């Protein structure tokens, strides 16, 4: 069962007084910063403050978590984003606090051997979400006071990132937008820290209530945001950002670009940007995967009758992604390039093909019964004869088919090296190898039949051609 802990480490009165004294003492560092907001002294004071919080929380052998007020002040520093130094140190500090003093965790040892989920409800959280619809107004009034993120604020942040990602490269990327990307990454970390232990407990116990109250579910279920628009913004951010940093290489670190950046006096931002864009992409991917995992669990709970009307209905993210990818061909390639989780990538690609190949009735009740059709093998089989291949490339562009097959094959390979093949759990290496060989042969056959159907010649060796060759070499290696 879920336990709720009321008090934290400082149970005795003396401890609390000391802690209170420490809090007041540390927070006092910021007081003088308030009076002259943008001066160097104010920045110094903030740096001192961050250092003091770090020292107080991590130096003692068994550190005490910083108080709510302290964490909130650190968070405000990240939100204000006055300078790169402040942004970076507050961001790192927040993540360390998150890691060392989690809000939700699974208790290691328990008398009867079962594992408990411990939730510290009093712990500070940057996200203000709740299941209670009525509380939304209270949230709104408080918003100005504490500057925390309600669902709306979260969506606004993502929207900002999407706009940023889809502008041209020449945009004046400043400290502020860098700060927003890190802010987003931190929020995803918070969501993850809350989600992972909950879903683990859920998978053991199969009780929906564990997941129902997770921050992510409450965030997505909020009536104050348009869930679909939020998801589309997430997609456009991840695709835009990845094209963006892939595009930077054209100028690379050539003389001109370096000079340009130093003219802007923004060199520290420029060099950080490259890395931060990438980590933002990864954070976005993490968010998308968590949502897809949540969707699956919710569906399971649905079928077991554990959910109520209050849980609401959400379109599964997989469907939204597939719609977007079919609707907007331009984002297909960047999405496949940046999204590198093999399991979900394979799933998405197989679903993509099924949209065109499977009969509608099969698709709706697919859920748990892993029929032949809904696997990669099934997809490859549909390319086994020329007439069905022709049928498919009438609906999907032949280039796109190749791209999808290549990415699916790569994802399959990754999974086989991690030994997580669907339907092949705990099998021996020889079996994996033989199934891999089977798949490789099928892939080659599929490419051959594509070429036959499209009258493609050898000259059409684009990026898919590279994949084509690689697959052949692989097959050669395996056999």
């Amino acid at each position, binding site marked *: 069962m879920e336990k709720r802990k009321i008090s934290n480490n400082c149970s005795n009165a003396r401890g609390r007084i*000391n802690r209170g*004294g*420490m809090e007041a*003492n540390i927070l*006092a*560092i910021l007081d*003088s910063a308030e009076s002259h907001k943008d*001066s*160097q*002294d104010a920045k110094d004071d903030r740096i*001192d403050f961050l250092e003091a919080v*770090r020292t107080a929380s991590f*130096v003692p*052998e068994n550190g005490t978590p910083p108080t709510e007020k302290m964490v909130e002040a650190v968070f405000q520093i990240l939100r204000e984003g006055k300078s*790169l*130094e402040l942004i*970076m140190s507050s*961001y*790192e500090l927040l993540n360390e606090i998150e890691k060392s003093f989690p809000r939700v965790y699974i208790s290691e040892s328990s008398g009867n051997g079962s594992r408990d989920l411990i939730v510290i409800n009093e712990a500070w959280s940057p996200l203000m979400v709740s299941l209670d619809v009525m509380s939304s107004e209270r949230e709104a009034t408080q918003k100005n006071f504490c500057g925390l993120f309600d669902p709306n604020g979260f969506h606004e942040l993502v929207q900002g990132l999407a706009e940023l990602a889809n502008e041209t490269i020449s945009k004046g990327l400043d400290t502020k937008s*860098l700060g927003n990307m890190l802010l987003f990454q931190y929020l995803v970390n918070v969501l993850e820290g809350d989600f992972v232990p909950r879903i683990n407990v859920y998978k053991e116990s199969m009780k929906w209530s564990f997941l129902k109250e997770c921050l992510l579910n409450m965030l997505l279920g909020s009536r104050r945001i348009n869930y679909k628009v939020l998801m589309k913004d997430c997609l456009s951010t991840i695709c835009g950002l990845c094209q963006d*940093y*892939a595009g930077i*290489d054209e100028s*690379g*670190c050539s003389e001109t670009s*370096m000079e340009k950046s*130093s003219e802007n006096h923004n*060199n*520290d*931002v420029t*060099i*950080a*940007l*490259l*890395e*931060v864009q*990438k*980590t933002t992409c990864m954070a976005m991917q993490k968010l998308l995967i968590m949502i897809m995992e949540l969707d699956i669990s919710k569906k399971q709970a649905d079928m077991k009758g554990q959910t109520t009307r209050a849980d609401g209905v959400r379109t599964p993210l997989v469907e939204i992604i597939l719609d977007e990818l079919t609707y907007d061909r331009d984002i297909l390639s960047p999405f496949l390039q940046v999204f590198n989780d093999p399991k979900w990538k394979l799933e998405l690609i197989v679903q993509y093909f099924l949209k065109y190949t499977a009969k509608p009735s099969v698709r709706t009740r697919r859920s748990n019964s892993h029929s032949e059709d809904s696997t990669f093998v099934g997809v490859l089989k549909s390319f086994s004869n020329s007439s069905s291949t022709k049928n498919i490339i009438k609906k999907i562009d032949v280039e796109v088919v190749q791209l999808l097959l290549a990415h699916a094959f*790569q994802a399959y390979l*990754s999974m086989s*090296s*991690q030994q997580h093949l669907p339907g092949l759990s705990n099998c021996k290496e020889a079996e994996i190898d033989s199934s891999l060989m089977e798949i490789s042969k099928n892939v*080659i056959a599929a*490419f*051959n039949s594509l070429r036959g159907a499209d009258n493609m010649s*050898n000259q059409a060796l684009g*990026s898919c*051609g*590279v*994949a*084509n*060759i*690689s697959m*052949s*070499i*692989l*097959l*050669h*290696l*395996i056999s």
Partner: protein
Amino acid sequence: MDVDDPLDFEIEDSLLINPVVPKKRKKLIGLDELLSEHYKEQSKLIEKEAKKQTKAQKSYDSDEDKNCKEAKLSSLLDDCQEQMRAVGSQEEISEWDLCVFGQQKTTPPLSFPELGSWSILQSFMNNELNSLVGLVTKQDCSFLEGLLINGWLLKLIFKCGCLEKSIATWTFLLMLYSSKEELRSSACEFWCAILSSKIQDGVPPVEIDWYPSYSELKGALEIYGFLFNFSSNIPDKNSSVFKGPPQNIITWIKFTAVFCQVSCKQLFLLTSDRQELAEVIICLFLDRRLQGLSVLMRSCMQSVISSFTEEEWINSYSEIAKSLASRVPMDLNCLRAVQCISGVETRSKHLKSAVAFQILVNCFDNKVTDEEGILNLLISINVKEKDCDFFKMYLYLVLTENWLRYDQMLRDKPVVHEIWGLFLRNCSCQISSTDLRSHASKVRNKAAFLLQGVGNN
């Protein structure tokens, strides 16, 4: 009244908003304002008097007299300006920042004719499957680059279980020197994945024919323009020569982190190499242009530190500290060098304490090297003396704090505890809150804050 208009009292404060010397910083207790107000008042008085005189002597004044007064007035104003600037310059040392990167050198060529001899490629050419794709023998790098970027090369290497020298060197050089972001990050992922296979469970390790050595890593830094002895000549930051490092430094840091991790099992790096690496990474923290990479640098630092064996570490950390202390200038940069070591595990704490202590020893020109000696020197400083350098006091205070706080053994020594408390009381009680000397209030506030902490314990 418009909302945006300043309020009455804000108008009075126009001096605060537009100080006379533009670049100057504002002090907590408005030393500058007081001064500038004072000077402005004085010059107003002079102007008024000048006006009175001109009024009174209107008819008698010759042009010469006028000119003479104007000259006097302007020279007086100049003096004021000069004095203000002198006060200001004392506080100019406002931010840590070192140029640890100077002029970049030319990168080695990245063309590799011998790549065609890659055995997998060769054997594939002779295979019947090639008829399917029609790969011709004369493939240039761009074909392999495609394989690399799309991740296929890694899959191929993992499948055949062997990384040949030609591919290894080619990808290594791309990673460190390519100007194309896509190539260098793919090459970096490639190397990191292959190296990680050596230490990960459940992944068959790849046999690697060629390993980079420390000299290659160091050589790359030199080409990026890293100044191994920057302390001797701190370059002018505005000079166009010091453009800062190329973006390849990112892949360098990532690779080094993984390389060190693997190194603790495979021993590619000597102890002295790893000592130097730790030092180099701390130096990277001192360059403002790299502060956006601090997350990467921190994890690299962690993996370097944890790559030492226990015996190596005991001998190494004070070596690192000594060498670093001799390089870092004695200003805010030395505080940054201490603060950037922010790991929470025991080794980071050791190192942090040692670095702070060694810098402190250096501050006193290595005259004393024992703990009590240093502390006794500190309490012998008289803060009431007129020419007490409060900026230095501030450095001592922060350094000592870090040195003692991160060394559990030392902190518990009663003698040390006592002298430290005395030093803090000296700083917080003997400096009056109205002391307007530069940095005096900073020292006072800091000491008062620390004293609170000592009391709590």
